[in-house]
């Protein structure tokens, strides 16, 4: 049974369409929800909590209808908000115990669960001190603890890595992974960073401007492509020219050569070329797709192409030929005001971009 099933969900605020005819279904596990800031992620969570009635469409969470069973949904799920949500003058223990009681846990159980949960998120002696003195990383842990204290079946984590440094980010992602695998709690985690979600999620949903861009398992995004990456110590161009002369589709990218795989013989040609030129081969691997590529490939099909003036790209459009799709932690391409990112390309990417 899907934990979340959404049918034609639309949410309009005065003048703004936050969600536009969204239909998707999500199986248990760790699910990532990706979109640029303002893509409608937080709005979707509020609708799924039954707090905000949608303009149109229906949804069920854990098999419960959001319009009729909001209260029963909220008994069974946890929610970690995106922004600061902690009173500074009480201790983490006091807050988490109180929040456990707000879910109906009897006093003794609330205290036990609060102590357990705070330990699981990695807060020890400091949990008795007022929250005002905590670091951002500790606050994020308290927020996570209050979402888990009543042992929900599903947690909504809204931007849990916001404001954390790289080390804190890794720890938080590790925690989220544990919540999904070890605790057996389904997770819906939002982020505007694709690389992060790629690491912890089983399934990634991408929304953009309130529309569904793609919803599929992480493996499906990162399946092997028909491109071979070859790195040699020196003489990249030498090898490139040689292979080109042999009729291999080859192009340079950074320190690498990208070679379209025509068949088993392609590997042999590379091997022979390297051996005969006396080069040192560092790497030869089949390239995998990255989730980011969805943004490079999809908009042309999903959205009508933006009109391009004869003088060049439309104002504000990202310049083609920017850096290659970013690695982990790169912001979502397509975010307005991110020049240089290969966002919604106004011209079809010719060379340099994968596929």
């Amino acid at each position, binding site marked *: 049974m899907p934990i979340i099933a959404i049918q034609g969900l639309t949410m309009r605020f005065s003048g703004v369409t936050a969600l536009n005819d969204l239909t998707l279904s999500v199986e248990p596990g760790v699910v990532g929800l990706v979109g640029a800031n303002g893509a409608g992620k937080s709005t979707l969570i*509020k609708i799924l*909590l039954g*707090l*905000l009635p949608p303009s149109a469409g229906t949804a069920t969470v854990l098999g419960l209808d959001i319009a009729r069973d909001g*209260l*029963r949904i*909220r*008994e069974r*799920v*946890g*929610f970690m*908000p995106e*922004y*600061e*949500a*902690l*009173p*500074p*003058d*009480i201790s983490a223990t*006091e807050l988490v115990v*109180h*929040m456990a*009681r*707000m*879910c*109906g*846990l*009897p006093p003794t*159980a609330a205290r036990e*669960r609060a102590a*357990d949960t705070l*330990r*699981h998120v990695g807060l*020890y002696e400091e949990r008795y001190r*007022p929250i005002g003195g905590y670091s951002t990383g500790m606050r994020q842990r308290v927020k996570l603890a*209050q979402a888990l204290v*009543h*042992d929900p079946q599903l947690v909504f984590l809204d931007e849990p890595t916001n404001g954390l440094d790289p080390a804190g980010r890794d720890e938080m992602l590790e925690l989220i992974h544990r919540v999904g695998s*070890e*605790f*057996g709690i389904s997770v819906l985690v939002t982020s505007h960073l694709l690389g992060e979600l790629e690491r912890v999620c089983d399934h990634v949903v991408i929304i953009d401007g309130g529309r569904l861009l793609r919803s599929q398992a992480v493996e499906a995004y990162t399946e092997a492509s028909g491109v071979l990456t070859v790195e040699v110590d020196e003489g990249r161009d030498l090898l490139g020219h040689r292979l080109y002369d042999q009729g291999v589709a080859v192009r340079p990218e950074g320190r690498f050569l990208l070679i379209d795989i025509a068949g088993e013989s392609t590997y042999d040609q590379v091997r022979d070329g390297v051996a005969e030129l006396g080069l040192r081969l560092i790497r030869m691997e089949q390239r995998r797709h990255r989730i980011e590529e969805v943004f490079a490939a999809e908009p042309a099909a999903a959205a009508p192409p933006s009109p391009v003036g004869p003088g060049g790209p439309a104002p504000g459009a990202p310049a083609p030929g920017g850096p290659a799709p970013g690695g982990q932690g790169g912001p979502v391409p397509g975010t307005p005001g991110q020049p240089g990112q290969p966002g919604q390309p106004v011209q079809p990417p010719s060379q340099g971009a994968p596929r």
Partner: protein
Amino acid sequence: MSTSTIHDIGYRHYDGKRLGRGYVLRSLYVHNLRAAFGLGRPARAKVMPFLLAAIMLLPAAGSVAAFGISKEPDTLIRYSSYAPTLSVIIAIFVATQAPVLASRELRFHVVPLYFSRPVGHLDFVLAKVGAMTTALFALIGVPVTVLYAGGLVTKMPDSSEQLLRYLGAMAGCVVFAFVLGAIGMVVSAFTPRRGFGVAAVIAVFMLSTTVVTIVQGIAETQTNFTLQGWAGLFAPFNLVDIVQVRLLGAQSSSVGIAPGIQGGIVALALCAAIVAGSVAVLYRRYRKAGLS
């Protein structure tokens, strides 16, 4: 950090009891009542409420002692005038503690944590208003009870009449607690920064009292005693005093008291409207905050 003494026994699921709405409402009420007196918070949060509670007790204790020595019935403060006499202290208590209950969780965005749980919006407001009212009732009611108990111990005459007056005054305390608490909560819910909240609540109480007193003074010089009485409806302490005098048989402690039994009924209706209106306003305020 050394974790040598901490044994990770893994995550355990909770399959115990989950209690219903009544328990959640009660927990919320107790939590807010504790917050009103700074319990479960650092020591400096306790200073103001307990200092003010102590100041509230002083005149009662002094009055009982004076009566014990002099045996002069006039030295025992009238139960029903205790709150109007100490209106400044009560106003300061409302001003410092209503923001703790009403605006602290708004300011730090804690409200969404409640409404993502099985906590109803109305329950949330009722628990807060209930806790503030209880705290104020304790603040005013305890010294009045000290007066009454002190009078009994020191052999105040007419004990049956004293009991009636005491019960009437306690009913008055309940009305005071509701009206003052409701006003304080609404004002501070719209001034999220604590300092402004304190100032705003004080301003509402002091300005209304001052303006009403001026109007009453002008009315008195023009010998328009009807206007003088009805003007009292617009200052919180005077308003409740009208209820006390006209419906609970107390002696007046204010400059102007609206005339007749209908004056009392109007005043009581106004009190009820203030409380109901503030619950409605707070409901909308927190509902909105729960979505932000």
